[in-house]
Every structure is written in structure tokens, then in C-alpha cells.
């Protein structure tokens, strides 16, 4: 739908999404900061370039599918959905509040546009596999794709590797998995808690095509997704290296911001940083067009 946005405009979208995330979390007074901020560029690329979707018709039968497996990063998806026009941006401030459609972890039945419920980690790739299996082996659908976003800490879950084996066996080439490789989880660095490396080799040995990118370079995200769609004999995983808390310097790289929301002073400071950045996460050129 919005495939016409320039990279510069997409970067501005990512910055808007980051500002939304900070405002939402401040209003909610709980939630996860680091992961959603780190994923903002990827979600800007997904919702404003990669995904074939219609925000005014969330159940459009021809749409691409996006499963968010690491449900705690949902603020980034809510923000991207609001920016894309699924619902009014004012509703973002209801995050985590009683009666809100924006539950602390996503619930499909409450908000059109979500494909599933998640929070407990490890089952998004399985659901993506089921959907992709139906497309490839039962319904002969070739022009739709199933995207799934996973966290790197989430890869500790055995369920992920059951699904990786399954998708590898059946060569589910319409799956495009994105691993948010930000190297943190609640108890510390992923390599201290439960080492994941060699992550590329792990996925390759399960029969996957692996792409590795800078997850803050929107052009790279778009190119990797395009490459993954062209791989037709096995599933693809994009290992997207990201900086947790990206865009807010006092949150960056710090695992302590995994599950914490900013207070109002911190939020004010974070918004100031983001405004100064003006979307310049990867772009070093001129200001807003």
C-alpha cells in the first residue's frame, strides 16, 4: 500500500513509532521499553513497505500475515498499526488499561489486525508454520507470505526449535522469520544466560536460508525481505542485529530496560532525544523533507 515512501520517510516513520512507544509506556506506567524501541525500524519497514496489507480491511483475504511471537514487544506493533491507520493514534494511550483493546500482551480477538495472541514465548514460529503449510500444501497460494518476529532470548525455548525443524522439513518457503538479535534478555546478555551462537549455523543446520543484517538500516530490512521472498526452496530467517533501546541513549544496550517503562521525567528526556535525532538512526543526510 505505502510502498512509495522513501527511505528517508520510512526513517521518519520509525522515529514517530519510537515517540509513540515512549508516550504509550509512560501513560501505561509499565511495559517493555528496550525491545520495542529496537524494533522500530523493522516495524516501519514492515508496515510501510514490506507487508501487503489493508489497514481499513484487516481481514482482507489476500493480505500477508504477521505473527508477533515475542508478544512483550507489542507496543511497537500497536504504534506501527496506529501510524498505518488501523486505529486512531489517541487509542495508543489506553495501552494496558482496563477495557483497552491494546492489552499488555496482544490478544487477537480484541484488536482486528492482530493474527494471534502471544506473550508466553516460543509458539509464534509454529503458528506461522501452520499458516504457511496451509498456503503451500493445501490451498496452493504462492503470492502471500507469513512473517514472524521473534526475540533472540526467545530462542531459548524448545518450541522454537521444534518449529524450526518442522518448517525445515517441509521447506516452508513462504515463511520469513525475523530474529531481533539485540543480545539482551531479562537476566542479562543472551550469551551469559544461554548462549545462542553460532546462531547462523544453528538455523542453517535446520534447513533455513539465513540473512544477516543491520536491523536499523531500513533499506537492508527491505532488501532482506525481498531476498527472502525470492528463496523458494526453504524457509528464510533474517537475523536482524539491533541495539536494545535504540534512539534513547540512556536506554541503549542496557538489559535493565528490557521490562521497564520510563517515568515522566525519563519520558520527557527520551522524547527530547528522539526529536533531536529527527529520524536520523541510520541516515546522515539533511533534515526532514
Amino acid at each position, binding site marked *: 500500500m505505502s510502498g512509495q515512501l522513501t527511505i528517508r520517510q520510512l526513517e521518519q516513520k520509525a522515529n514517530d513509532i519510537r515517540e509513540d512507544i515512549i508516550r504509550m509506556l509512560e501513560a501505561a506506567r509499565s511495559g517493555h521499553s528496550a525491545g520495542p524501541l529496537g524494533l522500530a525500524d523493522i516495524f516501519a519497514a514492515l508496515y510501510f513497505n514490506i507487508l501487503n496489507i489493508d489497514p481499513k480491511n484487516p481481514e482482507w483475504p489476500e493480505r500477508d500475515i504477521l505473527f508477533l511471537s515475542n508478544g512483550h514487544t507489542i507496543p511497537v506493533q500497536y504504534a506501527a498499526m496506529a501510524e498505518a491507520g488501523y486505529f486512531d493514534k489517541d487509542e495508543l494511550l489506553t495501552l494496558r488499561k482496563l477495557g483497552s483493546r491494546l492489552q499488555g500482551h496482544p490478544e*487477537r480477538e480484541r484488536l482486528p489486525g492482530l493474527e*494471534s495472541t502471544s506473550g508466553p514465548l516460543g509458539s509464534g514460529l*509454529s*503458528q506461522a*508454520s501452520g499458516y504457511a503449510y496451509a498456503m503451500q*500444501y*493445501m490451498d496452493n497460494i504462492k503470492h502471500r507470505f507469513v512473517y514472524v518476529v521473534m526475540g533472540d532470548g526467545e530462542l531459548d525455548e524448545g518450541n522454537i526449535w521444534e*518449529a524450526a525443524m518442522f518448517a525445515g522439513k517441509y521447506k516452508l518457503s513462504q515463511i520469513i522469520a525475523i530474529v531481533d538479535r539485540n543480545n539482551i534478555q531479562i537476566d542479562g546478555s543472551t550469551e551469559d544466560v544461554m548462549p545462542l551462537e553460532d546462531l547462523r549455523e544453528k538455523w542453517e543446520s535446520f534447513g533455513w536460508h539465513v540473512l544477516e543484517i543491520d536491523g536499523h538500516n531500513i533499506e537492508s530490512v527491505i532488501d532482506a525481505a525481498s531476498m527472502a521472498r525470492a528463496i523458494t526452496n526453504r524457509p528464510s530467517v533474517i537475523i536482524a542485529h539491533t541495539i536494545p533501546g535504540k534512539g534513547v541513549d540512556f536506554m541503549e544496550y542496557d538489559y535493565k530496560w528490557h521490562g521497564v517503562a520510563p517515568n515522566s521525567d525519563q519520558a520527557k528526556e527520551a522524547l527530547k532525544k528522539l526529536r533531536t535525532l529527527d529520524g536520523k538512526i541510520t541516515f546522515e543526510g539533511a533534515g526532514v523533507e
Partner: protein
Amino acid sequence: MSYPLQPDVFNDDVKLEPIRAGFGRGLKAAGAANDKIVALCADLTESTQMHLFRNEFPSRFVEVGIAEQNLVAVAAGLARAGKIPFASSYAAFSPGRNWEQIKTTAAINNQPVKIIGSHAGVSVGPDGATHQMLEDIALMRVMPNMVVIAPGDSIEAEKATRAIAENGKPSYLRLAREKSPIFSTDESPFEIGQAYILCDGHDVSLMGTGAMSYQLLKSAHLLESVGINAEVVHVPTIKPLDDATILDSARRCGRVITAEEAQIKGGFGGAIAELLSEKMPTPLKRIGMQDRYGESGEPNELLDYFGLTAEKMVDVITDFVHNTPKYHQEY
């Protein structure tokens, strides 16, 4: 309206068939009637009788391997793609191992994922405690949106399979491995959410689920000779429970006994206890597994050892009737 029973139901050579066999036939028939129905199994395709469906509709069958968490979450993905997936394994593993995936991806999503738990109960036999699933009724009936059914015999299992294929809800079907007596007929009614009075009585209401309903029916038959007139209520749907039929029977009989091949704590007996204590407190005795695990043994040996045969139940029921005054209070 009386419930049609097999003419040979009280004979020693009553016809036997595993309950899971009815599931196998039902799934194949459901698959022929609706091409949205697909099946998944975790390396137990023949054991769970899913091979009948697989052989007929190979392109609609998915082998998942020994991975029950993946089994149900893949099924949820298929459901999101518009399919009606039946996911089978042994009850000890599904829902035994993958309860959270069932809750999150099937039940909270309220998708028509069908969990088929075969080989439930102590009658699995020599495999022992790890394989004798006794907690599944408790695990599944506590889950909002979930329908829970334990068919009484193979004929009813076939009907229950056809029914959950079209109910649009996440559903759990509890099956057993061993051959068990067939008491219902092709003409016997089955509807999700309905309990059935197999025979009328007024001294005690015997309420059973799964194959235990047959044992209660046989108990009622044996009790006639000692002058006890027992009513038998077959409750294949544990959730949603048929409150009206159960409360009406309890009101008329004044005493209630439940029987199940599962833990009474949290199980079917637990469900009846909840209902009665809130709506109409009535003296209750629960037959089933008394907060312990099973163990190895031959199926019939184990049923006898744990008091789950009519011959053993008769003594318990007689004692209960003779020593418990009829009582209920309507709220």
C-alpha cells in the same frame, strides 16, 4: 424419552471396541463432509486411529513428529488459515506437555483447534503412571472457551467427533486405548452439552463420564437384586456441563455418586461437586483416582485394583445409600 441401549448391554459377552476406534471413523467421515478439516499427529498416527483419515486424505494430514508443543501451535496456525485442525497424541503428552500452547494459541484465540487425547486413564495398563493420563479433565475444563468431552463408547466417540468438527470452538476429546463395552446405539442421542439418563431410579443418582458410565449402568443392574433403585446419568460433555439434567436428577434422587477414570480432584467429580455445592447441596461420593498416580498392570487388573469396575462400585454405592440420608437443599 428413554435412551436406546444395546440389547446385549448386560450380557457377559457385551460387544467391545476401543473408544478411539470411533474417533478414527468419525474423523474420516467428518473429513469427507468438510474439506476444511485437517489432521495432525505427533508420531502416533495409528495408535490414535488417525491413519484412517490420513489414508483417505493424505494431503490434509500433517506429521509433526514427537513435538507436542509444536503440534498444537501449528494446528493453531492452520486454524488461523481457515482450517479445522484435529491434533492427536496420547493425553499424557497432549494436553500433558503443551497446556500453555493450548491456552494461548487455541483457547484465548478461541479458534476451532481440536485436541484429541488418546490413551487416557489407568486402563492404558502396563505402561505405568507416566502414560496413564488422569489430570487431563482438570487441566482442560478449567480453560475458558474450551469444550471437554469424554465419550462413553466407540459409537458415541464417532458422534462426538462429528459434533466437534462443526462446533467452531476449541475442543478436547478424551479417548481410551483398551476395548470397552458398547452401550449406546446408532439411534442414541448425542449433543454437545447434554447429559443423558440411561435408566431411571430414585434411591441414588449415579453420574458417570467416559467408559465409567457403562460400569455405573452395570452397577445399577446389579443393585436391583439388593433392592436399591439407582438412576444412571451419562455425562459425556464435562464442559459445558448440563446443569439442568444433573440438578434435576440430584433433586429427585437425593444422593449422588460420580465415577471417572481420572483424578476426582479437579476432574469430573470435582465439576459435579462445584455445581451441587453452589446450586443444590446434595450428599456426594466420588469414585475415581483418589489423589494418587496409577501403576503398571493389566488394564482390567488396574480397573479392579482402583475400584473402577461395577463389581467394586456396587459395594461402595450400597454402603453410601445405606449410610447417607437423602438430602438436598435448593438455593
